């Protein structure tokens, strides 16, 4: 009976079950059950075996189902997560097995993402991030580039209707006096409405109120947050205390909010201007104007308002016809005005970095495709064993995401370091440089970039891979014949990389040539062996008038000139090459200035009489200034060649006279000498007409307008750096209450003026270099791979008698073919984009032939280098091995 019942039991357990029941029944029977009841019970149990068999079968089926469920992948979170971990483990293992590939891939991505994150951070901080004012678009610069007079600002305040507030500001600095010495600190001087324009008020205490920019009411100051922390430990009792700025006591009325941009770098405080009609420079043009538009007013409306006001000024006050016309009198949002100059460079950098990233991504795609193809066999086996195509694709994508994540992490680390490095090489004058950080948005951007890169770079190879993955196993070959589309795709990638590298190389090349041209600009001086520094003594020096000023500086000059190693020391109002200074019109003796004639500014350079020799300027005609030119002798000047060209192109200017508005416009000044042009306004700016006037005669005017600062130049017989310390000490001993400003060699001053183009050139060259290296690596990879694919064919050819050199040439021809397409494409691209870079160039055309030719040669060399190794190994192919390699 059990034997029959066992038919119902589950097959796998049938024997055991049957044996057990049989044995039990047998054992019970042996005990000779005595009574009928016991025997009936045994019979009943025997029949029960049928039920148990069926029951067992059911239990077994349930068990099978349970096992199957835990093994199969169900659409449940738990299973997706474990699959993901499997993918990651698998991906990491296979990457570790091929360290060369992994390293190259990770560094490629790190380079691309690191550079993009860095530049993006910098450009975002400087150009895109709006300034921290409420409604920042309503804060505008009025006619940026033109200096207004306080009188004009007051008029604007009264007459413009489209502004809710108008303010004047000027970058300034003061000597901050402590018990143990003085520091020269920076901070703008502003009119009372300045903080209304910015829309931000003091964080502690209060801001300036109306009327606090008038004489007698303006001995106040507001401190910057950082200065307040540094100097006073954040003590809130600072409000109401007095501090000494330029030996005058100022009451601290407020502390500004942290990080507030007050339109001057490293500002420690803000002081009120003197906007009273009684103040000496009420009518001189020396302040900038900013304003806040009234709510709902557009810039166009404000511009129109401004033009109407200026037109009325022409009528009422006799301004020239061309004053404030549509072309010049503009209103610009403050952010745009500040970053105007740097915008084009920043965009250039962004473009370069995008190109580099494209090269990096193409490279990665190629690397991954290469790798996927060499794993064809493995993938085919997995496919044959039942792995779903989607699973394999996900696997490949996970792998490339791992690489992208590792590279991205390395890249972000790289960018943290390089942001700091780049901020260090950018010129100090770069706007908003102190606000550059690597912020959260950028990190998010990088992360998204990593992900997209990983997926894009993994997607195409993955998709490409899927079709042949299964056919290759069936066809029995090693998949040695690459499909046409795959080959075209890879070739396309390499050609793209080469073309992009060429574009970057051309950009870097023209910048390098431009930078060299800048360096070679004739400054008109001999700046080696010249040391410079500035002094800005406090206003009480001016109490002695012109004589007091001159005496003060004579003391300093004598002290410096007496030092060992110093040949001579002189002074000038504003240092050359650094820009800045004042200009005004002249009235030439014997000439009528026609009305409506365009304004020609003649720049004013008061100097001590030995200055021209000390800086090594070249006298072209006449004489230089000397000790005979005193305040009581006839007024004289030495002019530059630009002035000669402008005013006396066909006559001898020596002996000619003119009246100079800058110095009152009454006294006649006689020309006694002509000097070669000096690049006062910057190396790449055309030198304007300039007059050099002796301090003995100009100091009166300077004193009148309360300008006490001068720059000292000292010619040394030794390396200027070696006397810096002794100069510092001598000046401190002579004028202890006046801090020394920017003590540095003249050559450093000139170099600083080149800081902008230098930074741009360095960065672009780095990108170009990176792109070229990546392109070469990409090319090397493709050619190597092709050689491997062609192993069989090359083996046959060699076996049939082809010479090694033929094989070499055949392989190199392939590399050169890529270059032959990539190079013209790249040059075309560079030519198309030449306009974007032309603004940054000096004396070099963006389509400079020399550069184009050099880049072509460089590319040729790079291609040869990249293909030579695989070509040589192809040449050495052993036909026997290659034919057997299947």
């Amino acid at each position, binding site marked *: 009976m059990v034997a029959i019942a066992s038919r119902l039991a589950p097959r796998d357990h049938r024997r*055991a079950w049957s*044996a*057990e029941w*049989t*044995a*039990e*029944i*047998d*054992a*019970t029977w*042996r005990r000779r059950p005595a009574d009928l009841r016991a025997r009936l019970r045994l019979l*009943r*149990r025997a029949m*029960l075996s049928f*039920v*148990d068999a069926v*029951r*067992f079968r059911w*239990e077994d089926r349930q*068990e099978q189902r*349970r096992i199957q469920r835990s093994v199969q992948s169900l659409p449940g979170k738990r299973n997706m997560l474990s699959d993901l971990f499997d993918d990651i483990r698998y991906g990491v293992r296979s990457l570790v097995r091929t360290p060369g590939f992994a390293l190259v891939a990770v560094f490629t991505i790190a380079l691309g993402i690191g550079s993009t994150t860095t530049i993006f951070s910098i450009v975002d901080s400087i150009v895109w991030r709006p300034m921290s004012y409420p409604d920042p678009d309503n804060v505008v610069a009025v006619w940026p580039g033109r200096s207004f007079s306080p009188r004009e600002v007051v008029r604007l305040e009264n007459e413009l209707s489209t502004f809710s507030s108008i303010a004047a500001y000027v970058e300034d600095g003061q000597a901050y006096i402590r018990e143990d010495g003085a520091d020269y600190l920076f901070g703008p001087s502003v009119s009372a409405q300045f903080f209304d324009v910015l829309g931000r008020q003091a964080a502690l205490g209060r801001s300036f109120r109306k009327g606090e920019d008038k004489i007698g009411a303006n001995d106040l100051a507001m401190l910057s947050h950082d200065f307040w922390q540094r100097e006073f430990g954040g003590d809130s009792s600072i409000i109401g205390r007095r501090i000494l700025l330029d030996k005058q006591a100022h009451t601290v009325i407020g502390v500004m909010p942290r990080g507030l941009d007050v339109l001057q770098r490293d500002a420690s405080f803000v002081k009120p201007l003197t906007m009273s009609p009684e103040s000496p420079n009420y009518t001189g043009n020396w302040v900038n104007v900013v304003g806040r538009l009234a709510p709902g007013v557009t810039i166009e409306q404000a511009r129109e308002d401004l033009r109407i006001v200026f037109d009325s000024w022409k009528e009422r006050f006799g301004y020239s016809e061309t004053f404030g016309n549509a072309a010049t009198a503009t209103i610009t949002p403050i952010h745009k005005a500040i970053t105007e100059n740097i915008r084009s460079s920043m965009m250039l950098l962004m473009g370069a970095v995008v190109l580099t990233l494209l090269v990096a991504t193409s490279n990665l795609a190629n690397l991954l495709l290469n790798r996927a193809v060499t794993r064809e066999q493995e993938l085919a086996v997995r496919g044959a064993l039942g792995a779903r195509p989607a699973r394999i694709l996900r696997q490949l994508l996970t792998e490339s995401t791992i690489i992208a994540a590792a590279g991205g992490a390395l890249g972000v680390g790289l960018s943290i370091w390089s942001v700091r490095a780049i901020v260090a090489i950018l010129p100090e004058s770069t706007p908003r440089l102190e606000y550059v950080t690597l912020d959260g948005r950028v990190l998010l951007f990088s992360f998204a970039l990593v992900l997209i890169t990983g997926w894009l770079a993994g997607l195409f190879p993955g998709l490409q891979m899927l079709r042949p993955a299964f056919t290759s196993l069936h066809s029995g070959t090693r998949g040695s014949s690459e499909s046409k589309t795959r080959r075209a795709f890879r070739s396309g990638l390499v050609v793209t990389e080469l073309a992009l590298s060429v574009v970057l190389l051309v950009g870097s090349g023209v910048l390098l040539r431009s930078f060299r041209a800048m360096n070679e600009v004739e400054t008109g001086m001999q700046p080696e062996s010249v040391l410079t520094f500035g002094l800005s003594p406090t206003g009480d020096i001016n109490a002695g008038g012109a004589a007091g000023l001159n005496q003060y500086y004579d003391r300093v000059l004598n002290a410096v000139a007496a030092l060992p190693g110093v040949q001579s020391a002189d002074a000038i109002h504003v240092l050359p090459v650094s820009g800045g200074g004042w200009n005004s019109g002249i009235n030439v003796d014997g000439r009528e200035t026609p009305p409506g004639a365009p304004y020609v500014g003649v720049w004013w350079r008061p100097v001590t009489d030995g200055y021209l020799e000390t800086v090594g300027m070249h006298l072209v005609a006449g004489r230089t200034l000397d000790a005979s030119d005193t305040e009581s002798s006839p007024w004289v000047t030495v002019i530059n060649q630009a002035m000669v060209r402008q005013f006396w192109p066909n006559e001898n200017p020596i002996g000619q006279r003119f009246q100079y508005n800058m110095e009152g416009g009454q006294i006649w000044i006689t020309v006694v000498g002509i000097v070669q042009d000096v690049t006062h306004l910057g190396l790449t700016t055309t030198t304007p007409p300039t007059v050099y006037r002796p301090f003995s005669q100009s100091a009166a005017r300077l004193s009148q307008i309360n300008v006490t600062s001068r720059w000292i130049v000292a010619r040394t017989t030794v390396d200027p750096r070696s006397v810096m310390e002794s100069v510092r000490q001598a000046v401190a001993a002579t004028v202890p209450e006046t801090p020394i400003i920017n003590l540095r060699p003249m050559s450093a001053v000139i170099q600083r003026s080149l800081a902008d183009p230098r930074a741009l050139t360095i960065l672009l060259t780095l990108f170009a270099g990176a792109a070229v290296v990546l392109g070469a690596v990409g090319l090397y990879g493709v050619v190597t791979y092709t050689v491997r694919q062609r192993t069989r064919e090359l083996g046959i050819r060699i076996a049939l008698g082809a010479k090694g050199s033929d094989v070499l040439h055949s392989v190199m021809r392939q590399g050169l073919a890529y270059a032959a397409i990539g190079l013209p494409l790249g040059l075309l691209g560079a030519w198309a984009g030449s306009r974007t870079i032309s603004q940054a160039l000096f004396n070099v055309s963006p389509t400079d032939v020399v550069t184009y030719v050099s880049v072509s040669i460089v590319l040729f060399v790079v291609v040869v280098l990249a293909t030579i190794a695989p070509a040589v190994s192809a040449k050495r192919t052993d036909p026997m091995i290659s034919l057997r390699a299947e």
Partner: protein
Amino acid sequence: MPSIRLTYSTGIVLQAVAAGYRYGFDIMDVSGLPDGTVYPALRRLERSGLLESTWEDQDLAHAEGRPPRRYYGITQAGLPRLEEVRNRFRGLAHLIPRTAPPPPTPTPTPPISLGDQ
């Protein structure tokens, strides 16, 4: 191994095995459960790792002219569950008398004596 929720019947079976009733039919006799529930309980307990089964020594069984029987024993994992079951069903320990005969241990075959020399 799937964990098992111990019911009254599986608890009795576990207790019976612990008390020394090691054969399926013996457990049927002593547990008082319906005959049809014993083997399913035994199988469940075994799948859950609370019981393990072995077959008798074949030679021994054949010597007695019968097929070898299968007998069950409680595992290490089963002991705490047994405690748990005893706590839950307080009367369980008393239900099954502890007078079961021990399972047959294979007796060592005596060495073949070569007779007295």
